[in-house]
Every structure is written in structure tokens, then in C-alpha cells.
């Protein structure tokens, strides 16, 4: 079945975009600032992995805090801000009505970012929680919950106030995280921080939260964008669209269970790990359907947004397959507790999510601002730098993890020896982080220029042919 967004024929420049300009540009601007900050922190943490003495003389910059801060900045700063912006824009567009509650969304965005700033400073000061993906100090988390909910209200109103009763896959994926995040975030806050559960149940809850944040919040934001961009830009259908609903519900129902795979062999009930393994394997259905649905994006034919989306899609499917493979106990024996699992996270968050969102930003920012991207060169630099950066950092970490896993399983190999064996690959990962940062700077600079330069033509004239929407002015 061929399906495209229900209101694809709407004018390319409309009140729908201009009404949402303030909160969405605020969210995107914040996301890009965090992306650059996160890039700097990731680079420093990456250097510390092979040169431990780097910045280690100051308590604020020890590896443990640096790693927690860079992960938090990336997930909550870049990921959530950019994801929310894309989600709100898509829901307004496909809802066919201007975004409502924009003032509330803007206030929410401001408080989210203020609280995050305090939280990241808190992590550097030593107030990290110690749970992966959930490192923010307890004193900022309730504010962030409320701030997120305030932004999400606009999206939910766009969903409920849509002009067409029928909804497209983009809308399901865009609206789900607005609902999922407040729920899992509040549960994690209560059960880990304010009335903590006992013993290793904390590890189970933390794994559940981390899995939900990655698979049911960030990933759906990105998938929503590609389900929209593919038919919109290329005019090609979403292949086997009838299965898209199944893929969505499989992700929603099963996705949250897969966190247990991180606890294989750990001091938790064995069923937690087993259900994690089963869920990871069942999710292959989701990844397969998404891969087939969006396979049209794999031939971008000159479309900039789709070039980014294609890489993100490949990373998404590969990441899903690797999650299933490494959840098998015989493989986990080697991959667990190594850089291999770090690489998997990088592939899914730094690769899949980030690249799909980049594609969406290149498409939607000019429409929001009513101006084209000012520099084609910066876009080329961005693409080349982040792609090579991703390959280097993920590739380097995979090889390092592979070597480390083999070494760890041979009791005779000492830790200094393991560090020596993986050093070269960790240096490669650092080079990847440096390139990624360069790319992020190019994007942020281009965005800043887009905000300050004046469009010399009316927006409607610039954007009338759909293809012109994303082609930068040379």
C-alpha cells in the first residue's frame, strides 16, 4: 500500500510553521548548543580513556564525572530538545493546524534547559546518581519532569486537534514519546531517588528506564521524522505501509522489556535477563519492518535530508540486530562490560537517532525560519565530518571492545596489557569524536548564520517547489 502524509498537498510555507517558530527555534538552538558542548565533553572523556592523566588532577574532570556529564548532555540536551522540536513540528504539520500552547512550550523549553544546566554542573560537582542514562542530580529532576510535560502539552494538543481523524505513522511515533518520557522519568525518579527501591532492584529499574529512554523516546522521535521525510521529499511510498502499525506496537509493547539484557549474569532474578533477551530478539520484527518501510530513503538521489536519514536508518537497523546478537548469553560473555556495548549505544544514539534528526533539521529549519540554509559548504563539511566521525568512533570502539572482551576472558591477561592492546583503537575513537565535534560546529554555525542573515526573497518564493526547500542557496 502506498501511503503518504495525509496533507502532503498543503502549501510549503504556511501559518503552521510561523506559529511554531519561537518555541521550536528555541528548542533547536538549545539542542545545537548542547550538541557542541556534548561534543567537547565526549572528546575529553574519549582522550581520558587512552591518556588517563588528561585533566585528571581536578576532581571536577575525573573520567567518571566527565563520562556522566557528556552522556547527560547528549541525551537530555541534544536528544530531548531536538526530538521535541521535530515531534512538535511534525504533529502541527500533519495535524493541519497551527501549534497551540506555544507560550507554555517556550517556558517549558527554557526551564528544561536551565534545569539541565544546573544538573550538568551538579554532575561535575559530584552529585551524579551513578545510574547510566539517569545521572542527573535529584534536585533538578522534578523541574525537568514538569518542563518536559509543559512542552509536550503543545504536541498532545496538536494531536487531539488534528484536522484529519486518520493518523499517519509519523504521528504515532511523534506523539508516543510525549507520553512515554514523563511516565518513565517520574517512575524512575520515585523508585531510584525519592523512595528508592532496595538492593539490585535499583539496577533493574535503571536498566528499564535507560531502555525506555533510548528505544521508546529518542528512537520514535527520529523515526517519526523519516516516516514523514521519505514520502514528502522523494515522492516514493512507504513500502509495505500496512505493517508500520505492527512495527510501532511491537516497539511499544516489547521495547521496554529489553533493558534486562544488560543484566545477564548479574545479581538479579534470572527472568529479568531472560525476558530482556527474548524482547531483544522479538524487536527484530520492528527493525525489519522499519527497514523495509523506509528502504526508499536508502537511495537519497541528491536529497540532503534523506542522505542523513539513510545513514541513520542503516545505523538503526544494524544497532537493533547487534542488540539481539549481543543479548545471547554466549555472545554476552564476551561483549558484556566492554567497549563493545559503548559502541552499540553510540551506534544507536550518536548514529541512528542523531543522523535521522539531522535530516529532519535540514528540512524543517528553513521552513520554520522562512529562510534557506546560508552555506552549502558548511553542510558539506557537516556531512563529511559527522559521517567519518561516526565510522571512526563506532568502529574504533567495536574493535577495542572485541579485543577487550577476548582479553577479559583470559584471566592471565592483566589490565595494563588490555589497556595497551586497545589503546590504538581508542585513539581512533578519539579522532572520531574530534571529527564529530567539527561537524557539530559546522551545523551550529550554519544555524546561527541562518538566524541572523536576512532572506533576500519572500519565503513563499524561496520554498514553493518542494525540492527547493532543502537545497541550500550556493
Amino acid at each position, binding site marked *: 500500500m502506498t501511503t503518504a502524509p495525509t496533507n502532503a498537498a498543503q502549501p510549503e510555507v504556511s501559518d503552521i510553521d510561523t506559529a511554531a517558530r519561537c518555541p521550536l527555534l528555541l528548542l533547536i538552538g538549545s539542542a545545537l548548543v548542547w550538541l557542541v558542548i556534548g561534543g567537547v565533553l565526549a572528546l575529553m572523556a574519549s582522550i581520558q580513556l587512552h591518556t588517563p592523566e588528561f585533566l585528571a588532577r581536578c*576532581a571536577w574532570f575525573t573520567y*567518571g564525572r566527565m563520562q556522566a556529564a557528556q552522556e547527560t548532555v547528549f541525551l537530555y540536551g541534544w536528544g530531548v530538545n531536538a526530538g521535541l522540536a521535530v515531534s512538535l513540528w511534525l504533529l502541527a504539520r500533519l495535524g493541519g493546524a497551527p501549534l497551540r500552547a506555544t507560550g507554555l512550550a517556550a517556558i517549558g523549553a527554557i526551564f528544561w534547559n536551565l534545569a539541565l544546566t544546573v544538573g550538568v554542573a551538579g554532575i561535575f560537582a559530584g552529585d*551524579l546518581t551513578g545510574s547510566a542514562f539517569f545521572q542527573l542530580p535529584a534536585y533538578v529532576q522534578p523541574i525537568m519532569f514538569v518542563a518536559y510535560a509543559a512542552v509536550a502539552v503543545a504536541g498532545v494538543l496538536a494531536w487531539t486537534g488534528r484536522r484529519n481523524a486518520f493518523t499517519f505513522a509519523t504521528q504515532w511515533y511523534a506523539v508516543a514519546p510525549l507520553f512515554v518520557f514523563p511516565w518513565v522519568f517520574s517512575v524512575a525518579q520515585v523508585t531510584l531517588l525519592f523512595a528508592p527501591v532496595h538492593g*539490585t532492584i535499583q539496577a*533493574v529499574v535503571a536498566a528499564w528506564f535507560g531502555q525506555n529512554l533510548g528505544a521508546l523516546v529518542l528512537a520514535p522521535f527520529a523515526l517519526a521524522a523519516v516516516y514523514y521525510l521519505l514520502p514528502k521529499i522523494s515522492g516514493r511510498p512507504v513500502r509495505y505501509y500496512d505493517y508500520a502499525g505492527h512495527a510501532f506496537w511491537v516497539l511499544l*509493547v516489547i521495547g521496554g522489556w529489553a533493558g534486562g539484557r544488560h543484566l545477564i549474569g548479574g545479581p538479579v532474578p534470572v527472568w529479568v535477563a531472560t525476558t530482556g533477551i527474548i524482547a531483544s530478539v522479538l524487536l527484530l520484527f520492528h527493525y525489519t519492518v522499519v527497514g523495509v518501510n523506509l528502504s526508499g530513503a536508502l537511495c537519497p538521489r541528491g536529497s540532503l535530508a534523506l542522505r542523513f536519514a539513510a545513514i541513520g536508518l542503516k545505523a538503526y537497523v544494524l544497532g537493533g540486530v547487534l542488540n539481539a546478537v549481543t543479548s545471547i548469553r554466549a555472545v554476552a560473555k564476551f561483549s558484556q*562490560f566492554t567497549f563493545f556495548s559503548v559502541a552499540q549505544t553510540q551506534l544507536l544514539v550518536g548514529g541512528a537517532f542523531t543522523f535521522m534528526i539531522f535530516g529532519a533539521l535540514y528540512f524543517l529549519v528553513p521552513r520554520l525560519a522562512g529562510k534557506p540554509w546560508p552555506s552549502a559548504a558548511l553542510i558539506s563539511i557537516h556531512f563529511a565530518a559527522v559521517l567519518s566521525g561516526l565510522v571512526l568512533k563506532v568502529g574504533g570502539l567495536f574493535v577495542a571492545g572485541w579485543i577487550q572482551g577476548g582479553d577479559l576472558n583470559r584471566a592471565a591477561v592483566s589490565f595494563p596489557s588490555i589497556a595497551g592492546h586497545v589503546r590504538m583503537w581508542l585513539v581512533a575513537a578519539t579522532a572520531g569524536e574530534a571529527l564529530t565535534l567539527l561537524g557539530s560546529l559546522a551545523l551550529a554555525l550554519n544555524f546561527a548564520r541562518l538566524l541572523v542573515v536576512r532572506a533576500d526573497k519572500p519565503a513563499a518564493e524561496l520554498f514553493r517547489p518542494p525540492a527547493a526547500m532543502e537545497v541550500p542557496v550556493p
Partner: protein
Amino acid sequence: MKSSPLFFLGLFAALALSLTALVLATNAQYGGLAPYADITVGAAFPQAPLGLAARGQMVYQDLGCAACHTQQVRRADFGSDKARGWGDRQSVARDYVHEDRVLLGDIRIGPDLTNFGARAATHGLDAAHLLAFLHNGQGAMPAYPFLFMKQLVSGQRSPEALMIPGSPDFELMPTHRAKALVAYLLSLNADHEYPETRQQAAKPEAANEKKPAAPGKPAESAQPAAPEKGPK
């Protein structure tokens, strides 16, 4: 998909399912797990860290030590944990009942620390050795000089202080945080046998099927040879 209420009901049900299983059911299953009262030695295990060691866990958390070290020993046939001397038995849920913040860790850039205190005792490492190690670092582990204060030697040299080669007039005094961290590390010892760990030892091939002990009241060891039935 047209119906909004149905859609949101679906979302609600989907999330409620994993929440119920992974958060509520695990809590119901072993949220009440208590220390094991071993009448053969007249004490309950694991023993709660006291004073300085308890504060040391907060230092361990705030410096992000868990970013490089795990605190979970896997069973003998799953990785080289036992062969590396990290523990004779697999870690079980009961080992963590006293911890306010469980920091299992998810990467091993450095060694596992579950039984670090016991290992240190075996190798004759005391607080002074560990303080020197913290100050100097080694291999992939950086130095932590900010856990020490350089001070002028006044009168007799402090017994806790580290000497600075080439600076006889100065010494490095460990801060309270350094001493707390070292006390915590030296307190790490999870080698006491519980019914569920004896069960593991008896059936090594099925060890991973028997993890935490039964929840509820503190286990008694009147019949240590008859292990509790662990949840599946």
C-alpha cells in the same frame, strides 16, 4: 488508526506491562530481602558498612568510579571472574541489601571490586598502600591528587601522610574523602555463603537459574544444608 482514546489506552497498557513486570514484580519478588542470620557465627550477613566506610561509598559514587569498575561477580563458567580471583562465588541480590545506591557498573576498564577488601587483605595491602596508589595512579587508572593536601611538616611527620620524594619538609595528607574511600574499598567483601549460594555451588550448571534468595523475613540458617528455593 483513528481513535485517540484507543491509541492512548494502547500506549498506557504497553507501558504498564513492562512497568508492572520489571518495577513492581521485582519489588514484590525480593524487595523485602533481608540479611542472612548465620547462627553458626552469630552474625547477620552481609554486614552493613560502618562510619568511614559508609561515607566512602558516597565518594565512590560522586567520583564516578563505577564508570570503570563493576561490583558484580559472574558465575565461574561465565567469563573469567572467578579465574581472575574476583570472587569464589557469583554475586547474589542479598550481597547488596545494605547499599543505599547500588552501583553494579557496566564496563570493566579496571578490575571488579566486589571483593576488593578481601583481595587486599590476601595480598597484604593496607590503607597506606591504597592511599599511595590513589595518589600516584597506575596503568589506565589516573592519579587522584585532589584527594590529598600538601602540607608543611611541623614537628613529627603524620603517620597517615605520604612522603614526597625530594621534599623532606612537606608531606601529603590524605583528605577525609580519601580516607573514607580507602576504608570503603577495604570493606568490600562479599564472600559469605548464603543458602542460595550453596545451591549454586551444588548445581553449578544451573547456577544462573537461582539468583536471589526468597523474599520476606530474614533467612535462618537452622538447616544450612537445605537451601531456600530461589525464584526463577
